[in-house]
């Protein structure tokens, strides 16, 4: 099925131009990068943007509305919501990027090896892949977290244990395709080493779809991380993780809806930024460019 999908998704229309020209002309990519830059800056410069930290209580000033002292008001502990959103960006960006980066690298490497060498290695890897994809993704991650114990660290572990599969499948499929190409055959004939062939000829040709996929994967992982935290399985209080903030705010939904609504909005904005970048990259990195 994955093969069909890859075939179906592969773009059909080619518009030859240089890549940089495309980057400059891709408003999607630029908008996405601008948005991400704002979020990253806000996360990094959090201590400059607010004088509050994310966890100190002020039980005399709970549930305050927006004011000049508290830009977005305070929560049930009297914590500054704006500060918590800023510091939360650090956690959620880390979840999105770190979780994805590891699965991208590990999964691609496994897929590369399986596809290039084939044989028993390929069969073992694909059997493992079959078992992992037999589960609904989220159900398996929940199961793993339940097994490993709750918390951010174990959440990362669970995501890594499951997430590599997508990349292994994508890259393996591409490798199988590229392996039969003339230039690879030629390289082999003139006696290039396996490592040399992989690095020089295979990798550059198969990495694009994995990277494009990884952008939507970042969004998925942020959603996954916040969902787990929402269920109490991921980040733990008092961490200002956005999903956890939604969970904590939901008790007060009827009286202070913004405690849940704003962290959700932050997730959406971050997701949109990465989606835009992903779309833009897909355009820019199209083969033939």
């Amino acid at each position: 099925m994955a093969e069909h999908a890859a075939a179906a998704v592969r773009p059909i229309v080619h518009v030859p131009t240089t890549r940089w020209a495309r980057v400059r002309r891709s408003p999607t990519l630029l908008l996405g990068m601008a948005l991400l830059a704002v979020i990253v800056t806000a996360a990094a410069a959090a201590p400059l943007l607010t004088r509050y930290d994310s966890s100190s209580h002020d039980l005399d000033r709970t549930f305050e509305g927006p004011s000049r002292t508290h830009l977005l008001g305070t929560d049930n502990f009297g914590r500054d919501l704006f500060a918590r959103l800023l510091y939360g960006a650090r956690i959620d960006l880390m979840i999105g990027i770190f979780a994805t980066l590891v699965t991208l690298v590990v999964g691609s490497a496994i897929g590369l090896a399986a596809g290039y060498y084939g044989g028993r290695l390929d069969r073992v890897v694909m059997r493992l892949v079959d078992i992992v994809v037999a589960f609904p993704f989220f159900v398996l991650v929940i199961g793993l977290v339940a097994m490993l114990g709750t918390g951010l660290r174990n959440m990362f572990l669970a995501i890594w244990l499951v997430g590599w599969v997508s990349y292994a499948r994508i890259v393996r499929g591409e490798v199988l395709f590229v392996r039969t190409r003339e230039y690879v055959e030629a390289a082999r004939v003139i006696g290039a080493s396996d490592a040399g062939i992989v690095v020089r000829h295979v990798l550059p040709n198969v990495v694009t779809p994995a990277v494009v996929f990884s952008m939507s994967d970042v969004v998925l992982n942020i959603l996954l991380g916040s969902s787990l935290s929402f269920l109490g399985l991921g980040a733990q209080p008092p961490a200002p993780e956005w999903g956890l903030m939604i969970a904590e705010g939901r008790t007060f939904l009827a009286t202070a809806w913004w405690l849940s609504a704003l962290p959700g909005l932050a997730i959406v904005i971050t997701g949109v930024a990465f989606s835009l970048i992903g779309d833009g990259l897909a355009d820019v990195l199209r083969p033939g460019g």
Partner: protein
Amino acid sequence: MTRLVLHRVLPALLAAMLAAFGLAGYAVAQAPKTLVIAIGADQTGLDPQQVQNNESGFVMSTIFDSLVNYKPGSSEIGPGLAQSWTVSPDGKVFTFRLRRGVKFHDGTPMNARTVAEDLDRAINPKNPCFVIDRKVDSYDEFTFGSVKDGSVAKMEAVDDYTLRFTFPTPNAPFLSSIAMIWQGIMSPKATKDNNCDAGQHPVGTGPFKFVEAVRNDHVTVEANRDYWGGKPKVDRIIFKIVPESATRMLMLERNEVQILADVPPSDYARVEQNKALKFYKAAGLTILGVAMSNDLGPFKDKRVRQAMNYAVDKDAINKGLYAGATTSSQGMPPVLWGYNKSVKPYAYDVAKAQALLKEAGFANGFSTDMMVYSNPRGYNPVGGAKLGEAVQGYLAKVGVQVKITQYEWGAYLDRFRRQPWEGFAISGWSGDNGDPDNFLGDLFEWDAANNKARINNTGRHHNPAYDALLQQARQTTDQTKRAKLYEQANQILHDDAPWIFINHTNQVRAARTNVKGFLLNPLQMFFHMELVSLE
């Protein structure tokens, strides 16, 4: 095929969806006099002897009677299936005179023989349905005593309507214990017909009969028009399971449900300000605190433990976290008899805390750990983690640095109750039977016979003078004398400060104003629902 999808199926589906929206205004008439109660989780079975969780108890309290029942709205003992009873002067023999003409919902007559047949499975290891051999939530040996050490009660049906229990030692709390919903009487025929487990087909004598239970959705019971205590005033009660507290609140406001089994503190004001709703609040039989390792680390020193109590602003926590619906604790719930009125909760006094720490040799404070859990409990509606964070903040101000580790509830219990942890741990208790021994004994007594802390004395509090008082009270039948002993024990407990005593969570429920005759019971169950009407 594809064309078919596009031309026929899609429009049809769209129409169906529109119809779904169109039906939005279509209201469905409810059957007359149905009372809906929203609860947060599903029951796990409805056989009183086999389960011991609140949700099962909520439903069972409408279906079952015990030999004696709690009086409406109180933890005092009143008549139940027994019309009257006598206790021998030595406090060992309890004789119950049963009500005549009462039938179980399945038609089985209720008499000394059938009641004994049901209770037999609690105390007789040879009974094929002996509950200890079955998988049960819990089994509290404190009602009838333990089969293993021979302290179990002897039961005999003296005649058709007289039932007698004889104990080897005085058992002052027995009357309170036997009124608990966990001692509700099930029709022995139902137990037999269901292969020893009538948990999904419960048959009692109570004001309502079981109709159906749909897993994670609802439980329905209907009026027992022949109830000995009077005909119920509503036709049906539906316990609707709604896990989200915000949703429960909205449902109450929309009159989709009429009673909320619990209300989060954040919604107290919302209920009180709504003229269509009534706020029910009563002192609860609970205690919440932060246990300290009395035998390990700096906490070995009583002055350190007292300092911790002075360092935490309970009033601010009550107001900020619990929306003012809790009462500060001095170590014992004020609704219990035996509560010592002259003992006041520790005041918030940072200077005094620092002085005590200095005296104990910790002028610069110290670092330690705290274990918390996240889920809410009956005695801690905001969950352990939030309380932990608040306490952590206060202790930092006197130089005590606390590192919080959160555990999932199961893992938490395991560590908390069975391992020699050091530092702090969120601790709490809900009363079982309304007897002081159920708090002072279970939570803070040293098991002298085995020279270890009793299982729920998780802070490992150990004071021989205190233990002696409790022992003495258990053997005293005169309640006034018992109360005096508990008052002394209360004073010692307060001074020993084995926990940071935080508060007692009031029992809070909300109902529509047209619900009349509804009373809170200190034991939290929905007793006497036959008195409740919908106007």
